[in-house]
């Protein structure tokens, strides 16, 4: 078995993504408090609308970052199980998959499909697959009308990470 690839150490934990988002949102709101020179001539309504626009954009950027962290966490867990010696069924399935696909494995079609075979994580794995459509829409410039089935925002995606931590039990 090939050596475990060295991880970059640059991937963000879910908490880091949350704190970054939270601080930026607070800074944005403070910036938009009436009285800043940039807003000379603005009506209060215009200030509010612009702030909401900025907050929405921040929400999307943070959502993308959070979904990227989810992808990183799942892939890193996959690689650790593939190169480790755990004997549970999930790890054995991952090692079989690795023998066929190695690191060129699809997160959605391969890794998450195996998580879906576990009763405890079936529903959550499906939810992550669905949320990744939002990630793709954000990553590829949002130019098409996405069929997401539900509305995503940072709060909802962060809540997914809380479930992931408790149910996936990453090594």
């Amino acid at each position, binding site marked *: 078995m090939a050596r475990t690839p060295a991880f970059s150490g640059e991937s963000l934990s879910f908490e880091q993504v949350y704190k970054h988002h939270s601080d930026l949102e607070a800074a944005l709101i403070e910036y938009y408090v*009436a*009285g800043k*020179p*940039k*807003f*000379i*001539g*603005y*009506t*209060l309504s215009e*200030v509010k609308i612009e702030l909401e626009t900025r907050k929405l954009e921040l929400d999307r950027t943070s959502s993308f970052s959070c979904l990227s962290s989810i992808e990183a966490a799942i892939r890193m867990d996959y690689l650790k199980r593939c190169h480790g010696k755990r004997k549970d069924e999930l790890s054995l399935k991952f090692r079989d998959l690795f023998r066929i696909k190695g690191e060129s494995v699809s997160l959605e079609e391969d890794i998450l499909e195996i998580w879906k075979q576990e009763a405890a994580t079936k529903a959550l794995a499906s939810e992550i697959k669905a949320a990744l459509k939002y990630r793709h829409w954000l990553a590829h410039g949002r130019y098409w009308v996405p069929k997401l089935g539900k509305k995503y925002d940072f709060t909802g995606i962060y809540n997914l990470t809380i479930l992931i931590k408790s149910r996936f039990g990453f090594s």
Partner: protein
Amino acid sequence: MTADEFEKFIEKKNKESQSEAKVDWNKEKKEWLKYLSDLHTDIEGFLSKYVKAKKINLKKYPVIIEEENIGEYRANAISIQIGNESVVLRPIGTMLIGSKGRVDIEGNGKTRKIVLVDSRLKSLKDLIKITITLPGENKPKPKAKSEKIDWSWRLQDPDSPGKFLELNEENFYACLMEVANG
């Protein structure tokens, strides 16, 4: 949040609403409408020779503005017709940040702003005064808040939103051409 903090919050909000209640909003509205009328006089002056030669058509018409504390009222907008191009000078109101009034110049999807600001203001930098006090020195006295402001109309510089251009004939023509897609 303690009960004390909540008490202070209630006090603060009540004081704010009382000081707002002292503002004569009807007087504010009248002043702004007077400045608006003066602006229209200036613009009619800039364009008078073209209007006389029937190369430009100017039309004043009322619009309804609704603003917090003032309510609904009428103000005049101006429509400027140059050939097939139409530009509107739309009054926005007086309840603004750092400005006593604003008129948007709209045409072909573009907008430029004319704002009523302190006549001493040339850029946003003029609003910011930084003083550095060394240990032992006396801090400078803050400017008296009741100082009367001389308001004047300025064009917001489109290339540098923090800067204001004098509203003169030349700058107004350039603005009109830009908005009318000249």
